[in-house]
């Protein structure tokens, strides 16, 4: 007993000497066993995962017999992929960074990258076995930082995770490595800021010797086949949930002012690599709002076609202060740096509809979407009011111009109902506050006097119930131009990392210049407050439907030093607010975080951004949601080729959408809203009725079915087969098309079977 007490005392003494921190780190490391050779670290479902001492892994799919390697086997001998591309593709992660000086400022202007292979070659990678997988720690002495990847197998899928707590930079890194780093390693230490971490850059990469394609969620969806181009390899980076709005002028203008990069948008956090014998689907479970997808197409200088996600740790931005060009990186909090991607092994090759089905199943299991039995009809975007430049006694000011009053909207609904249109749904935009563009923040469901006031609004709501029409009253609860309604422009506007209000201005693609005025965005707290007030006032009306187009399509951070919000926090604020809505809800151009809450989606993306590296586009967005959330095509009458958009609606099972105003659209000429140039209701009506008659015959048969198959029969001719057996063939070409079984589809037309 005495001996035991003595032993315990010695142990306590040792522990006291080591200090708690040392104890904890010792405990953490000691729980994991270091791997020294290729080791099987887990088996789940059909997948057997093994990792070697360099952190390279293999995932064997026993069902298909195919082995997925963390990097392309044989890349060392590839003559095309050389230099930095090869090093990136040989690695399990690539860390992008900027150097920092002794004051903590960024000292390098360009963003650099370091590949995981560097740590491997420098012997600075440690691989540990964990409970159901492995942890690979990379120490990058050259940039004074450390990052770890966690691999685990769960229910047959592979999870790859970055935990914020594992990212060590600067002093934290030095402290960690001081005991085991060599003198040479410590000599090259140069502090840096990690900006992003690319995960598994070449996992599943396809080569020209394989058949298959990579699916990327750009817009409605696009794919790159494995066949390389014979010109310079290219790549694109597609941010999930769109660009960051709080960096200076988010539409990036090139140095020469000669080109402008339109912001790309990945609408949902899924991508896939489909091969002859097996396929993987990557779904980002955590941190997708701070991530982007990098898509590479094989070409002269790269033999691999692949996509991989990047976790954005810090935003980076440039500005000019006092005539000097400066660079900034956002402050970050590692508690918001968690990132997790799940790779699902599909055991076989899948077609596009198969991919959609797999992803839909995951969403359904996660209760993010649910089956819908909504009937398809005709959808309208109706423009209520706009504010325009005016003058009062010669003093310039803004004045509200009514374009569709509540009574006029009632007339539109009545007229269309009388013409036999059932299931009309309206997204009523700019119906309150200051019209389309807020002046003060919008925080109240309140009628606009110019549009008829409260009594007319009540009449409109009654009429919509009587006609069984769903009016979604849209509100932008994020943007404002002036302080008021409890939100201050000085305190509550989102700021850039240069401590300036992140002014959202319209960019002219002709002159590459921004308009002088714009609006700002509310921070997370102000947004939540405005939302709460808005819902409180909206609840006074019975059974009205709401729309939040801007929430659905605009996610941003706030880089205010005093009160920063990450995109994760902003998204949390959205989700918390949206979960309080009891009534029906719609959204336009909606990212996938909105799917859980939306009963209808207006203006679902109809195409991808059509990057040069894509080989085609796929309506994956629609294939996932069909039968679950009704959605529309983009506004038909805003398109220069309207018939093609009607065909796209039929092809993708979308509702028709027209944007209208009761007044003549000439009223928008010369205003900030001149993009509404084709929206005069009386001019649109006849065409809308005609198109409705043509398309409703087909879509009413399939509105609650899911897409079972989608294929292109030839260029410009596609066939969509639904779960109820109905097949729809759409012909975009200017010649008729006859199917193998003799069904003739005229040029620019469609036919259905079943």
């Amino acid at each position, binding site marked *: 007993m005495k001996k035991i007490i003595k032993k315990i005392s010695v142990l306590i003494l040792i522990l006291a000497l080591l200090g708690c921190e040392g104890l904890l780190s010792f405990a953490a490391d000691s729980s994991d066993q270091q791997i020294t050779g290729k080791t099987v670290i887990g088996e789940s479902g059909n997948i057997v995962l093994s990792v070697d001492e360099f952190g390279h892994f293999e995932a064997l799919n026993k069902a298909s017999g195919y082995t997925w390697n963390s990097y392309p086997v044989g890349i060392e001998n590839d003559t095309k992929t050389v230099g930095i591309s090869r090093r990136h593709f040989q690695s399990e992660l690539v860390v992008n960074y900027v150097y920092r000086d002794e004051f903590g400022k960024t000292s390098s202007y360009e963003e650099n990258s370091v590949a995981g292979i560097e740590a491997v070659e420098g012997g600075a990678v440690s691989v540990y076995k964990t409970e159901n997988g492995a942890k690979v720690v990379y120490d990058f002495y050259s940039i004074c930082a450390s990052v770890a990847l966690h691999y685990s197998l769960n229910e047959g899928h592979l999870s790859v995770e970055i935990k914020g707590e594992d990212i060590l930079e600067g002093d934290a890194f030095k402290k960690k490595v001081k005991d085991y780093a060599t003198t040479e390693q410590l000599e090259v230490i140069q502090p840096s800021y990690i900006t992003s971490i690319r995960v598994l850059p070449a996992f599943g990469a396809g080569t020209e010797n394989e058949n298959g394609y990579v699916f990327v969620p750009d817009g409605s969806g696009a794919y790159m086949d494995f066949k390389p*181009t014979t010109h310079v390899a290219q790549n694109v980076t597609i941010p999930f949930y769109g660009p960051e709005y709080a960096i200076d002028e988010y539409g990036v203008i090139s140095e020469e002012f000669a080109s402008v990069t339109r912001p790309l948008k990945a609408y949902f956090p899924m991508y896939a690599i489909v091969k002859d014998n097996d396929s993987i689907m990557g779904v980002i479970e955590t941190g997708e709002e701070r991530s982007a997808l990098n898509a590479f197409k094989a070409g002269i200088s790269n033999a691999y076609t692949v996509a991989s996600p990047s976790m954005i740790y810090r935003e980076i931005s440039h500005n000019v202060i006092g005539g000097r060009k400066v660079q900034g990186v956002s402050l970050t909090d590692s508690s918001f740096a968690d990132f997790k991607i799940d790779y699902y092994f599909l055991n076989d090759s899948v*077609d596009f509809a198969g991919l959609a089905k797999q992803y839909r199943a995951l969403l359904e299991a996660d209760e993010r979407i649910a089956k819908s039995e909504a009937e398809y009809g005709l959808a309208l975007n109706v423009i209520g009011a706009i504010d325009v430049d005016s*003058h009062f006694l010669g003093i310039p000011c803004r004045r509200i111009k009514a374009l569709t009053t509540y009574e006029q909207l009632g007339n539109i609904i009545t007229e269309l109902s009388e013409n036999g249109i059932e299931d009309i749904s309206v997204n009523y935009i700019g119906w309150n506050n200051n019209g389309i563009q807020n002046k003060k923040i919008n925080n109240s469901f309140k009628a606009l006097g110019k549009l008829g006031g409260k009594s007319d609004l009540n009449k409109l709501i009654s009429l919509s119930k009587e006609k069984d029409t769903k009016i979604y009253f849209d509100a932008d609860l994020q943007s404002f131009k002036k302080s008021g309604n409890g939100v201050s422009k000085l305190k509550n506007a989102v700021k850039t990392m240069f401590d300036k209000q992140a002014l959202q201005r319209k960019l*002219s693609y002709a002159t590459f210049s921004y308009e002088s005025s714009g609006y700002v965005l509310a921070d997370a707290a102000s947004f939540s407050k405005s939302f709460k007030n808005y819902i409180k006032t909206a609840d006074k009306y019975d059974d009205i439907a709401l729309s939040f187009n801007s929430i659905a399509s605009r996610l941003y951070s706030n880089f205010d030093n005093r009160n920063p919000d990450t995109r994760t926090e902003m998204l949390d604020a959205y989700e918390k607010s949206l979960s309080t809505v009891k009534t029906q809800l719609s959204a336009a151009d909606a990212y996938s975080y909105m799917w859980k809450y939306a009963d209808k989606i207006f203006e679902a993306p109809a195409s991808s951004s059509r990057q040069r590296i894509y080989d085609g586009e796929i309506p994956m967005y629609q294939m996932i949601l069909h039968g679950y959330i009704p959605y529309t095509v983009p506004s038909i009458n805003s*398109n220069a080729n309207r018939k093609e958009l009607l065909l796209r609606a039929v092809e993708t099972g979308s509702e028709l959408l027209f944007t209208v105003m009761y007044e003549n659209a000439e009223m928008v*000429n*010369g205003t900030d809203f001149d993009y509404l140039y084709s929206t005069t209701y009386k001019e649109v009506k006849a065409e809308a009725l005609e198109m409705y008659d043509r398309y409703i015959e087909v879509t009413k048969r399939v509105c609650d079915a899911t897409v079972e198959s989608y294929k292109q029969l030839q260029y410009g001719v596609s066939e969509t087969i639904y779960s109820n057996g109905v097949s729809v063939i759409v012909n975009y070409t200017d010649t008729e098309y006859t199917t193998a079984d003799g069904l003739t589809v005229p040029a620019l037309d469609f036919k259905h079977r079943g």
Partner: protein
Amino acid sequence: MKEKIIKIFALMICVATLFSLNAAAAEYPNYQSKSQYYSYEYNAYDELSEAPNGYYPASTVYFDNLPLDMSGSKLTDIFYDEKDIYLLDSANSRIIILNKDLSYKSVLNHTDISSGEFEGTDLSFVGARGIYVEDNGQILICDTEHQRILLVKDNVLTGIISRPQTTVIAEDIKFDVTKVIRTGANYYVVAESIVSGVLVFNEELEFVKLFGSNKVAVTGEVLLQQIQNLYMTDEQIAARRSFSASKINGIDIDRKGFVVVASSDPDLTLAGSAIRCLNFKGGEITIGQGSKKFGDKLIVKGTANAFSDIAVDESNFYVVFDSKYGRVFVYSEKGVLITCFGGIGSEMGLFTTPIAIETIGSDIVVLDSQYNSVTVFKLTDYGRIKRELISIIDGGDFEKIGVLANRLLKYNTNCQYAHYAMGFVAEQAGDYKTAMSFYKSANDRTSYGQAFKLYRTQFLKDNVLWVLLIAIVIIVALAMGISYIAKGLKKPEGAVYAPLEAKKSGFAIYCLFHPADSFWQIKQRKILSPVWLAIVLGLFVYTNVVGFFTNGFIHNMNRAQDFNVIIELAKTFGLITVFVVANWAICTITDGKGKPMEILYTAAYSLIPYVTAQLIKMVLTHILTGEETIIISIITGIGLIWSGLVMFVGLLTIHEYSVGKAVFSVLLTIFGMLVILLLIVMFYTLMGQTLSFVQSIIQEYSLQH
């Protein structure tokens, strides 16, 4: 197992389908939403206006997949001869011939060409930059590197156009040919280093003349240099940069047989002569009206478009290509902009290194040399309607014009041409009032003036009695007014003052006719009327402000949204204040006797003719057409001169100056006003800079901490 085989088979079919679809092209139907592909138009105020796409990128065809070894190839030009498409592969010294649908047809290597009568000639054309095919199938290759044009027919070299032996072109200038065309019996050749025009060669391939050179754009820099040259020695002049005419970059023949040329010099873009249509003598045929007619508006030198190539399509629309921004502008032969699209970027419809443009029927193809690809642009419904409307506008089928214009407006209410066409139809139908309304929407003042003239004639005819009656009333009122003033100015016998001279209320009128006497009396009798002061200054502001909005459309370029009360007050009250201060300041150093109030009254009273002329102008702008503007100019001119004279005599009188001194003091006053304005501007600039400096410091501080 069977299921798996079926699945694999299905995938193979699927992938094979994808590959066959994309072997040479990425193609998409046009259901892309507007926001993803951007094109625009300009309004009459040179402002960008949103518009539907006139063309859409239908496909990008990569030639890497042709059944040829494409490694190292560099495509530099494309030509369509109404049958086949010819691609010039400059790096491999060959011509790739495609079918109209861009599928491969054949290849012509330089080794396939027999030198014919030019035995021993090296036929390699590596570095060639231009190609043209004559109606008889003869291919012209601009062999830029070797400074020659090769003429090849049926795989045989039939001729060579070489550097002309002429004194017109200096010996040290290279004959680096980039473009060639043939029309009639002549060949028209563009060489990069030769800026003095297009070289014309006859059928015998002999040099004939230089043709259609660009004029030196008259810029401020050029004028300054011309003035400085007057004071320089010949050596100095020779040593400095000289302004020569700009080179021609693109050339084509339009459907009427005229030669159209494009130049990439930004000076010419700004001067509005970057694109020119030339007759066979080299004389210019005007395309459209007005300056800055081509390219993007409201941009300054350095950012102006550079038009490097031009092609004319089957309906005689000019397609010009701006290599600076990678944009394509499509104009009618009258200079009406159909649409503008394109750009530099990685999306379909944008380019990386665009190098040449060609038309295939109504389609436009842009050759991108970096990717050995062409992007094919097809007309959208909107573009098709607009072009058709422009094509038939002079044809006289007004019903069809009306239908098309109406359809165009359904697509785009911003489209000014549609408004113009509607106005045109209404004018032809005799409905001048409606026509005026449409022309007003189209911002077309010339057509509005024509319709207004017809409307006015019709109105006068229909209301002749009323018009006569009103004219009589005006004449009688004028006569009575003149008679009243005449009487008021005449001193009754025995009276000390004339009636207008006697009272404050009429004294301002008296000043206009007897300024020397009256302003002297102002000093002596202190006969000042604050009411008149208020009325005149009020009317001065009123005519400026109200005139801004209410002057007739033909004579008024203002828009309500451009009105700024601060500027208008500065132009009226501000100007008077600065004048009074400057004049009073000057009079203190030139021994003037006038007091500030006297100067103010002098200024105000002397403004009466000007203000009256402005009031008359306000009425006349609603009655007179653009051609009759001279009447308005005469009336306002009289008002201005009268006011000037009265003011001059008034200042002379109140300051008790001699004429010479008065002139001197007026000049000094103008100078003083400029100094005051300069000080105000400097003050604001300094304040702005100080503010910006403080902001920078605060920003730096907040970023550091």
